[in-house]
């Protein structure tokens, strides 16, 4: 196979009202097996996907939010969250699930997966990619 491509999954939908978030996560987890260069971005209502304490029991819907915690195990450990999107929604980083991954090159140190970036930084990151998929 040729050189790895850079895949960015841009999450722009809120988690429960539509299926995009959960079916997007399924793509990311399957895609992780292909040894490409993978990252995720959370923009607009997509930042709500990472909100702590989601509990869908009273809606009868499946709670898939714990699956984000598995991303680190799949070596998906660069989750970029747009600062402006958080601020517009009255959220801070403390509202988000504390997602981490273990760095095997650093004695399995636990490191944060979530990186808060501003709009200009996100714009640069988007420009670096080869493949962009929105969920």
């Amino acid at each position, binding site marked *: 196979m040729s050189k790895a491509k850079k895949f960015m999954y841009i999450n722009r939908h809120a988690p*429960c009202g539509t299926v995009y978030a959960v079916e997007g996560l399924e793509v990311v987890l399957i895609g992780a097996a292909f040894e490409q260069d993978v990252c995720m971005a959370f923009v*607009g209502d997509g930042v709500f996907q990472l909100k702590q304490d989601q509990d869908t029991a009273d809606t009868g819907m499946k709670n898939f939010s714990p699956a984000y915690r598995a991303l680190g195990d799949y070596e998906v450990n660069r989750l970029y969250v747009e600062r402006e999107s958080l601020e517009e929604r009255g959220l801070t980083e403390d509202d988000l699930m504390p997602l981490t991954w273990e760095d095997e090159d650093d004695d399995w140190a636990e490191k944060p997966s979530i990186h808060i970036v501003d709009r200009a930084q996100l714009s640069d990151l988007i420009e670096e990619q080869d493949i962009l998929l929105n969920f």
Partner: protein
Amino acid sequence: MLHTVNKSPFESSSLKTCLSLARSGSDVLLIEDGVYGALAGSTHSPLVTEALEAVRVYALEPDLKARGLSGDRLIPGIEVVGYDGFVDLACTNDKIQNWL
């Protein structure tokens, strides 16, 4: 009259359209992604806070919980109801406009 709004005000104009057309004294119920309109401290909160002077605003608790939103994060004056409360609102109001 009962109005329901099921979309996020950050991504869709539904809430804004609803509030511009709902008459004084109406009930407005936020459901599904519409409950994000109940969040305090957002860019859309002033719109809802202002609307509360003319209409009653409710948010559906199961949909709030599903999205990790608890009562202390909501705009003061918004009332939280369950599906039973939704049914009651649909009874006490003689007609319903669902802003889809």
